[in-house]
Structure formats: structure tokens, C-alpha cells
């Protein structure tokens, strides 16, 4: 965050190499805001079942506003399930059943009168595999604004440009906005998906392992981007890459097999002085 983003790919690579070496240092740098920033999402006793299998066990967590919260843990630990509860994407799975509360600024999103469509307009999402629509770059970014009925009231061109700039993609695509989003490279596609998610200006952005399908250079660009996004948005990111969590997040939640939240604290504390021995085992690679 202290370092401005650069346009040149080579500089960014160099920067990311430094980061790999100096993980310890960057952890202490990343936690810029003290604990106690205001809570945007308050999760209480959240459990999720797929048929009879419990995927999440009574998870409670207060997610701070305009910070990066990382969810880490081994495969099948329920971190993606947790993420998908926050914008009710689990509603799309017939077999899923959710207990507990998820309060977005005090409003339980699982209340009967809450429309998941309206909720998802305030909580954007970026997925593991880049999934741009088979439409032009412009139409991809404009899609959210259009379905949300905002496209007529605003300068759409300006909003598309703003979103692409925020996603650090504008300079690469500004002359080819009519080109299909699928013609971009994997890393560019993922930044396009981020631009698409931020174009309608949500309050929260959920990211489900957004860099796991990308090469190291593209990954470091996404990580820089996440840093910048946290100035304006609350970012909640699932990752199975612990170095990534250490580099980019302010808070870290550790899930372990069975859908249990084992520890949730400042990233620095989790990585340097975890309270739970299982977390220490996981972080040092003895488990998972």
C-alpha cells in the first residue's frame, strides 16, 4: 500500500520477487489499520449443510470495513462455502441449507424480506477461473450496470473506463473495447472480471481464489490490485496460498477440515503468534 502501482510488467515482477523473499517484512507492513475498524459484515453462528453433510460449523466472524480479509485453510475446509453465504450464492444450489445470520451493516441478509438479487448488487464477486462473458470487453464491464438498471442514468462510457482503470486494465485494452473478453490473456481476463465486479460500485468484493489459475506475473498484478481496492472496498478473499494471504490481507481467518473456523485475527498475529496450535501446524506446513 505504501508503494504506488506501476504500469510496467517488469517492475511489478521485480516487486513481487522482493515480496516473496521478504514475506516476514511485508506482513508487518500490510497491517496498516489497527484492529477495531468498523464492522461491515457480522456473521453469527453460520452453519451450512449440503444434504446431510455439514460444510460449515457455527462460524462467527466480524469482518472489518475497507480492509482485506483472507480466508485460508486446506481443501474442503468450507472457506468457499463461507464466502458464498455472504452474497447468498449458495441459494443457487438446491441441496444447500443455511443456518445462522449474516448481517450486512446490521441487516440480516437471510431475512425473508431480503432479495438475494438486491444483495448481490451490493456485494460483487470474482471467481476462481476467469469467467468473462463471451461478449465485448465493454459489454462485460457494463453488464452489471445494465442489469441493475443504472446504465441509463449515468455516463456508461465513463463508468466503464473508471472500472477498467481501477482494475489496472485500461491502458492495455482502451483501444480494443469491442474485442471479445475471451481474447484476452488469463490474467487480463481476471482483471476484466474484477473490473466487471467493481463497475456497479458494490460495498464488498468477494474473491474465490482469484489468482489460483494464473501465472506468477499475473498473480502479482492481481495482488497489487487487491491492495488498491481495499482503499475503497471491503475485500474478502479465499486463498490456499498462505504467502498470498500474508502479503495482501489485514485479517486472516483459518478454517480447518470439517468446516470449523479455528482462528480469526490480525494477519500478523496469525502468522507470527497464532493462539491455536493447529493453526501453527497448518501455517508451518505440518498439516493440510
Amino acid at each position, binding site marked *: 500500500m505504501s508503494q504506488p502501482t506501476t504500469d510496467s510488467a517488469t517492475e511489478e515482477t521485480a516487486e513481487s520477487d522482493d515480496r516473496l523473499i521478504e514475506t516476514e517484512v511485508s506482513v508487518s507492513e500490510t497491517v496498516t489499520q489497527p484492529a477495531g475498524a468498523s464492522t461491515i459484515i457480522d456473521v453469527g453462528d453460520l452453519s451450512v449443510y449440503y444434504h446431510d453433510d455439514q460444510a460449515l460449523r457455527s462460524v462467527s466472524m466480524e469482518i472489518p470495513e475497507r480492509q482485506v480479509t483472507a480466508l485460508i485453510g486446506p481443501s474442503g475446509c468450507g472457506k468457499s462455502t463461507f464466502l458464498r453465504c455472504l*452474497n447468498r*450464492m449458495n441459494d*443457487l444450489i*438446491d441441496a444447500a441449507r443455511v443456518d445462522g445470520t449474516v448481517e450486512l451493516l446490521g441487516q440480516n441478509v437471510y431475512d425473508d424480506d431480503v432479495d438475494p*438479487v*438486491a*444483495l*448481490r*448488487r451490493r456485494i*460483487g*464477486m470474482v*471467481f476462481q*477461473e476467469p*469467467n*468473462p*462473458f*463471451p*461478449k465485448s470487453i465493454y459489454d462485460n464491464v457494463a*453488464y*452489471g450496470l*445494465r*442489469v*441493475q438498471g443504472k446504465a441509463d442514468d449515468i455516463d456508461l462510457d465513463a463508468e466503464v473506463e473508471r472500472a477498467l482503470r481501477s482494475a489496472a486494465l485500461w491502458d492495455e485494452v482502451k483501444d480494443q473495447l469491442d474485442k*471479445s473478453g*475471451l481474447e484476452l490473456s488469463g490474467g487480463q481476463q481476471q482483471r476484466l*472480471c474484477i473490473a*466487471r*465486479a467493481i463497475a*456497479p460500485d458494490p460495498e464488498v468484493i468477494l474473491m474465490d481464489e482469484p489468482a489460483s489459475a494464473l501465472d506468477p506475473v499475473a498473480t502479482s498484478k492481481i495482488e497489487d490490485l487487491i491492495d488498491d481496492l481495499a482503499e475503497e472496498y471491503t475485500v474478502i478473499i479465499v486463498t490456499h496460498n498462505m504467502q498470498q494471504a500474508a502479503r495482501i490481507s489485514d485479517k486472516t481467518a483459518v478454517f480447518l477440515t470439517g468446516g470449523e473456523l479455528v482462528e480469526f485475527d490480525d494477519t500478523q498475529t496469525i502468522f507470527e503468534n497464532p493462539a491455536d496450535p493447529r493453526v501453527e501446524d497448518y501455517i508451518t506446513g505440518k498439516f493440510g
Partner: protein
Amino acid sequence: MSNESTDLQLAGGEQSRKARERLYRYIFLSCAALTVFITTGIFVTLTVDAVKFFSTVPPVDFLTGTTWRVSRGEFGVLPLVFGTLAVTVISALVAIPTGVLAAAYLSEYASARTRAILKPGLEILAGIPTVVYGYLALVYFTPFLRTLGINAGTFNILSASILVGILIIPMVSSLSEDAMSSVPDSLREASYGLGATKFDVTIGVVIPAAASGIFASFILALSRAIGETMVVAMAMGLRPRMPSTATGPFGIPYIQPMETVTTSGQTMTSAMIQAVEADAAVSPVVGQSLFALGLTLFVMTFAMNFLSNRIANRYREEYQ
């Protein structure tokens, strides 16, 4: 077993397997060649007999004549082309919207259980013999049109065409549903994640991404409508007619659509049935007209396939 005997078995298997593989290859090849051979054969036969026909009836008279009356030696194909086009257009108006929306319901809205019941149901519709549709048109649908206040003749284009439309709905819906179901869920998730409604996802993402498959279903269904014979022979009448016209202001003639579709007409296919029956009794040229009509039908279907492919390529949104 010793190593030696295992080696021998391996060596022996190699020879016979290669021979078998060669044999399979030739069996498959001959089946593939057969289809090409038959298609070419049909085309050549059609052309040869059509050429004989055109040595008696000048092609210009055939293509521009507005009267098809075999008994008087009048072979103008236009009324038959008009009949066929009328059936194709009206049945498309029935089948395309209904079929695509039914497919969208099955793919995007229906629960797994509903789909398990509805989809086979729709496919059964495709298995009903076409003669049943012809009977329904004649005995039930035409009287039904009359109760709606439409002055339909006993045999009429509208009733036959709507039933042909119903007949081809399953082709459109079944193939379109397959195309929509193969759109990856990641695109749906992306769309729902942006606050799209089910309708937005269906219209804005799924249908465009499935467009090439949906267009393919139109092509197949409309080719079927063009070639459909039984329903039109039963319910549309056997009178080749040009569209009804009236004279408007300043003596400008115009087509009266309702007049046209509520009276009888004839398609190329049903004219071909008549030609087959009349063959020996009248003259060889009537029999040969069969092939000229067949060739015209072939060209029409081919042109439509070509055009649809062009349109599909223009509008499709290819996903990975």
C-alpha cells in the same frame, strides 16, 4: 506361466490385432462412404430426370409460371413455392418462440424433477405420427379457428401450418435445451453475482452463449417443415394457389393475408404425391415434374441451411 510363453502370446496378438484393426477401419469407411454415395446418387438422379423435364417444359416457364395445372400441361412452380413458404413461415412463427422459451424454462427455471417429467414429454410429442397431426388439423383445429371467428375453409393453409409448427416444437425445444444446458455454470454464476435476475441470466447470457446450437435447431426444424408432407396433404387441400390479392387505391394490387391463409393451397411436397399418383395415367412429363420439384425443394433447403449458418456465425457468442 514362464516369461517365454508370455512373449510368444504378445507376438501372436500383434498380427491378428493389426488385421482386425484394418478390417474395422474398412467397415467404418464403407459406412461413411455409403452416405456420401447415396447423397450424390440422389442429387444425380434428381438432376438427370429434372433435365428431361426441362427439355419439355422451359425452365423459365417452370420458375415464373403462376399456374400449376398438370392436366393442362401448365407447370408453373410459383404457387407451390408460395404454399411451401407459407407453411414454413407460419410454422416457424409458432415453433421458434414456443420452442426456445420452453427450452429456456427447462434449462433455467425448472427444478430437476420437473425437467425429468417435462423433457421426455416433449420428446414424445416428436414421436406422434404426422398423420395424427393432419387429422387434428382437419377435424379439430379448423373448426376451432371458426369458433374464434376466423372464416376458415375446410382445407386451409393456417390450420395445417400451425399444426406443422406444433409438430416441430420438440425439435426446437429439445436441441435448444441441450445447447442451453451446455452453457458453463461459471457464466451463470458471474451473472447472478452481479445482481442479475433469472430473466437477465437467461436472456442476456445463456441464450446468446447457446445461440449457435439454438440456430442449428431452427435449421433442422424448418427443414422438417419444408419437407413435411402428410399434414399439408391432409389439411391444406390440393389446390395450388397464389396469394389472394385485391386492388387497392389507384389500382395498386395488394396481398390479403387473411384471405390467403384461410383458403386452401398446396405445397411442393403434396404436389409431388399427386404427381406420383398421376404418373402413368397422364404423361411422362408429369412423372418428370416430380424430379424438378424435388430439385427445387433441395435447392430451397440448401439455401436455407446456408443462410442460417451465416446468421448463426454472425450472432453467436462463443464461450470457451
